């Protein structure tokens, strides 16, 4: 089972996790920029964090045979702190860096005017830099937040196919599917979504435009939830090809829209373990640009 975790915060995880991810079949992942638990108080704190995502964390992942990519943004929670907002000026230079595959996580936390402003400005950036967008839906007021999110995306002119709306559940999946955006599900031990419910959603809504992630971070979470979901799918009668679509081809197609995915195996790790890693998606080379 080859796995691409489209949302996981590896800076918060240990090398044991990297080993376990590799052993479970994870060969690529995306680490979205988010908040650190402890609120930031200045722009420099973001800069060091972004640099760490593109530098040290990518290096660390490579040591374990995993291709690391990142999304860059001012997260919704900290968009409310005027000391942090000026980081928006720094974002453009990060959006052209290698391996930056989307603008994100953006969206709503408490649905404040400051969040509105940061959300729209960052959607504009995504359009300007032709990058996909990762949108986080709020933990509280999820349904209302999702409605508003989809409205803002619609108004921004960003194509829905360039947007993943994440942390969905039974109550808002249909909205997002109808809007034509990608549906992201974070499989958690207790909260958000679990693997059995996920399988039920896949049975009901199909495997297209679905991204399954562990969203593992510094909270109670499990980086192997992608694998567990794949196993639950197989147990429920989905085919290996269905699993491959959800856990590999879908994230490759979505983030491949950035032209910034690098998926060839890391030297020293066995290419044979990762079939078709460098292949295009359904005959199209979604992995544009120099892949060498």
């Amino acid at each position: 089972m080859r796995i691409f975790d489209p949302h996981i915060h590896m800076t918060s995880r240990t090398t044991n996790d990297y080993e376990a991810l590799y052993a479970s079949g994870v060969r690529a992942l995306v680490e979205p920029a988010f908040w650190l638990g402890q609120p930031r108080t200045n722009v420099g704190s973001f800069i060091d964090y972004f640099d760490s995502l593109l530098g040290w964390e990518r290096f660390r992942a490579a040591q374990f045979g995993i291709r690391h990519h990142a999304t860059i943004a001012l997260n919704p929670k900290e968009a409310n702190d005027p000391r942090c907002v000026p980081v928006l000026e720094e974002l453009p230079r990060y959006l052209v860096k290698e391996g930056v595959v989307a603008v994100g996580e953006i969206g709503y936390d408490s649905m404040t005017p400051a969040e509105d402003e940061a959300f729209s400005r960052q959607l504009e950036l995504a359009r300007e830099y032709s990058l996909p967008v990762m949108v986080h839906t709020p933990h509280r007021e999820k349904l209302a937040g999702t409605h508003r999110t989809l409205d803002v995306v619609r108004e921004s002119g960003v194509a829905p196919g360039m947007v993943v709306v994440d942390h969905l559940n039974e109550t808002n999946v249909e909205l997002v599917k109808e809007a034509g955006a990608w549906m992201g599900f974070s499989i958690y031990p207790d909260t958000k979504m679990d693997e059995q419910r996920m399988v039920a959603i896949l049975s009901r809504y199909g495997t297209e435009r679905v991204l399954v992630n562990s969203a593992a971070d510094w909270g109670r979470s499990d980086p192997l939830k992608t694998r567990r979901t794949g196993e639950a799918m197989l147990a429920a009668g989905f085919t290996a090809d269905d699993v491959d679509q959800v856990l590999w081809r879908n994230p490759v197609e979505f983030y491949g829209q950035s032209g910034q995915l690098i998926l060839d195996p890391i030297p020293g790790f066995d290419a044979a373990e990762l079939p078709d890693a460098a292949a295009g998606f359904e005959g199209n080379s979604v992995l544009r640009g120099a892949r060498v």
Partner: protein
Amino acid sequence: MTAAPPLPPMPFSLGYGTNGFTDHPLPIALELLAEQGYGAVALTLGHPHLDPFAEDLDAQLQALRETLRELGLRVVIETGTRFLLDPRHKHKPALVDEEAATRVSFLCRAVDIAAALDAECVSFFSGVLPDGASPETGWQRLIPRVAEIVEYARGRNVLVAVEPEPGMLVETVSDALRLRAELDEPDNLRVTVDIGHCVVVEPDGVRGALLQAGPLLANIQLDDMRPHAHEHLPFGEGTVDLTSALATLAELDYRGVAAVELPRHSYDGPGLAVRSMGALRSAWEEVHAMKERERWLEESTTAVAADPASLPRIFALAARRVGRKPLHPDTDPTGVLFGAVSDHARGELIGRLGGLLPPDQLAETLLGLYNRGDSSERRGVLRGLSALATASPALPGVVVGVGLRLTEEALRTNETSLVAAAVGPFAAAHLDQHSWRHAVLKLVFMGISLRAVTDLDERADTELARMASDYAAERTAAGRPIPDDVHLLLRSSSGYSTSS
């Protein structure tokens, strides 16, 4: 994003020598070659493929000409058959022997065959001087005989090409040019170059020899070879830089035949035809990638000269244009030691900036690119410092100051490729001895080969040996193996005194 332009075709035709297919009948060998994408064949006259003295030679030539036409193969005539004229003595009689009438008349016959097949040229060599003959005697014999062949060929509108061979009187391209000069530069006397021979005998190597022959090149033989043995080897088994050879041919706009020459590998002819074509295609891709890197460098330099503010974006996007393969994939597959091609392209761009920007601005630019760069951009800046240091032994103080600051910053990281990029020529020239020793020991500690270090032997001292020895003791105490590079430090430093 700029998509890479498609690979242009080679201006020359790739061929394969039939002397590497002596276990196949000629028509079958030709089919196999065409099947593998070869557009030419180097046809060696004589056993087993085409007997130049056969009674039905004309009929054979007519049929062969038809086959070559059908398969779309160009042809050059090779005359190096070992026992064609003397069953007991290889390559005898030679043009430098006392008697060589049969050799001259054979080569004239080869000219006739070339005319009948519409071949590109007839290639021949001078021969080994017989015992006791002086080189001057050799030249006296060779010159009139070649004159006769050249004259004969002129009458049939055929090119003849002399091939320098290790151990023969005409051994280098210089010798071939001398022969031509002695004959008053006949237009139809050209030169064959075997690129493998060049690593054995040519003072300026493959590229030098090809450039020297330049527009006189009429035939190319492709193979690998080691510098001390005249033995034709499959690509990758010797020291020939195939990429540089093909690049030079393209630069010369050589439009003739370049044929693989593996006369001792018929037992695996079909396999080698496939693998050789693979090696040639990858080398050609690499030629193209090199050109793309040069183009990027030119365009970027021009753009930055016009608008220095465009630099950060150009720098960030570099790998998308030039690729990110390791610079030396064979010896450094991860690119940690010697960097990726993108690191060096960025480094070269910085090297160019040295001539564009005043020192203060250059220093500020380096600082900005590093501080605002990701790891690959930072490697590019570090390689750029090395490019600057290599180009100028006396860098402005402000540039050295910033360079040291960045080098020290990189050396503090634990990212292997950054640390390795920080111990190149800039560090060798400017880093203080204490920091330099710590950098070297850090490499050992991180398991990075000391091959990454520039001027290791020159700067290693007894203090570094002491540090290495303590490190070895610590490893031993922990029951862990001592890395090989530690022994290198203990050994290499013994001849140097402590300095700081």
